[in-house]
């Protein structure tokens, strides 16, 4: 029995800005189902009174001083990675009417 529907998969794809075909949606549904089934194993463990784990590195307070860094990259170099540009700005599909 599937715990995840085709609609759920399509919604996730939309939230992730991915275009997927119906065949892909079906395949993803099965894969997501397996992943959820695997992860649901964790629910069997009693975690009452245990602090949630936010990090597994054991690190804390990794910070830098407030000093300007020269990354050696100018605007042109950075803009070269964008599909479209104009007047030193990134050109995108219009987002308001």
């Amino acid at each position, binding site marked *: 029995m599937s715990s995840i529907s085709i609609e759920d998969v399509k919604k996730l794809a939309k939230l992730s800005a991915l275009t997927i075909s119906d065949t892909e949606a079906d395949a993803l549904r099965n894969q997501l189902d397996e992943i959820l089934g695997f992860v649901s194993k964790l629910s069997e463990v009693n975690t009452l009174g245990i602090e949630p784990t936010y990090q597994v590195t054991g690190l804390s307070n990794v910070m830098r001083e407030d000093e*300007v860094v020269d990354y050696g990259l100018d605007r042109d170099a950075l803009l070269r990675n964008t599909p479209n540009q104009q007047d030193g700005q990134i050109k995108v599909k219009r987002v308001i009417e």
Partner: protein
Amino acid sequence: MSQTQYIPTIGIECHVQLKTRTKLFSGANNDARDAKPNTMVSPICFGLPGTLPVLNREAVQLAIRAGLALNAEIAENSYFERKHYFYPDLPKGYQITQLAHPTIGAGSVTIHLEDGSDKVVRIHHAHIEEDAGKLTHPNGVDYSLVDLNRAGTPLIEIVSEPDMHSASEAKAYAQEIYLLMTYVDVTYGDLYHGNIRFDVNVSVAPIGAPLGTRTETKNLNSFKAVERAVDFEINRQVKLLDKNERVVQETRGWNEDRQATFSQRSKEDAHDYRYFPDADIPPLKIERSEVEAVAKVMPKLPNQYRQEFTAMGLDGSVITALLGVKSNAEIVAEIYTIAGKETASRVAHWLSSVLGSAEGHTDISSIGTARLVELSGMVDTAELSSTAAKDVLISMLSSPESPRHIAEQKNLLQVSDENAIAAIVEKVLADPANAKAIADIKAGNDKVIGYLIGLIMKESKGKANPGLAQKLIRKRIS
């Protein structure tokens, strides 16, 4: 007027840009005020693969200071999370922010209403997050342009409880947040350039009923806009409810030209941000001792100045005008310490009435306390009339000269030379046209003396010391 009585409920979210040299997670320059688009950026701001954001220590320090100003608990443990959405101003596809464990916990702000009363507004929490880039939409074309200079600028978002119930309370809250954040110096506080931005959540409901459906009007950048947007939403929602229509929960914008809110069609599923802890940013642990160290060097808050100025006997409107510019409040408080109440009070009135009204503040820190004290002293010794002193004050804004030098140059010094004034008194009293006035005074109508002083002032071109002139008239006719 509506049949039913409604009560509005307002909560405000306020974004404050922190005045760090660099961005929240990258060493790119954060001062993009006069910079060309996309010149204050780094691979991290562009969200390029393989880059590692690292937290700016100064941003955390400023957040602690802001938190203390909000009378809030600073969390010992806080975390950063990713908030996911796709929009061209957000290159990574997620914003690094805080959700479950923000650095600044619950607090409170005392706001000051126009009728002179105070009210406490509770703060739910405030979280640290990065700003997004700036989009522009040139007219008549099918594209938008993205400038990432602002992407990654450190912000704190201050979230109030829904404790406000009128447009004027919302405005007073916005003003107090502005004062607090500028007084503790965590932001440049330039409202025009969006350093502080307000989102207002407004709902209305019949008195006694559960809260109504709310709308959120975003990105207001003046106190007036906050007040008017809230007012507009209250009226709009009351009209809908009176017609038995329903308020749609939505995001709205504010049209400054039309002075009206408008619906911004929000994207479907827009609220499914799929937050999760950001694995790139290890947890933040803040020791109690660190908070105490910041608390020790906290500058005076607006309320402390308010109390001092009230104790000096200043009016509410004068106090409000003074507090509007931090350096002016500092100057008056300093003069109070070094020169006493009379001088401080005179300077306070100059600052609030001569140099700026509540709307147009003037920063007079360039004049300096020493020259203000000297100028006030010249009024005390009657070397300058109070009208002439205001004239000198305005000149001092653009001149580094001493008030005495300016007064001499402008020929404003009062004549206190007894012989010089006596000569003018003699001339005025000898004028046959004034014989009746003299007779009236002798007959006991003392008010007429003011008329004669007026003539003497006119004769001396305003420079005679009026007190001395009066004394000489009395001496002459008694």
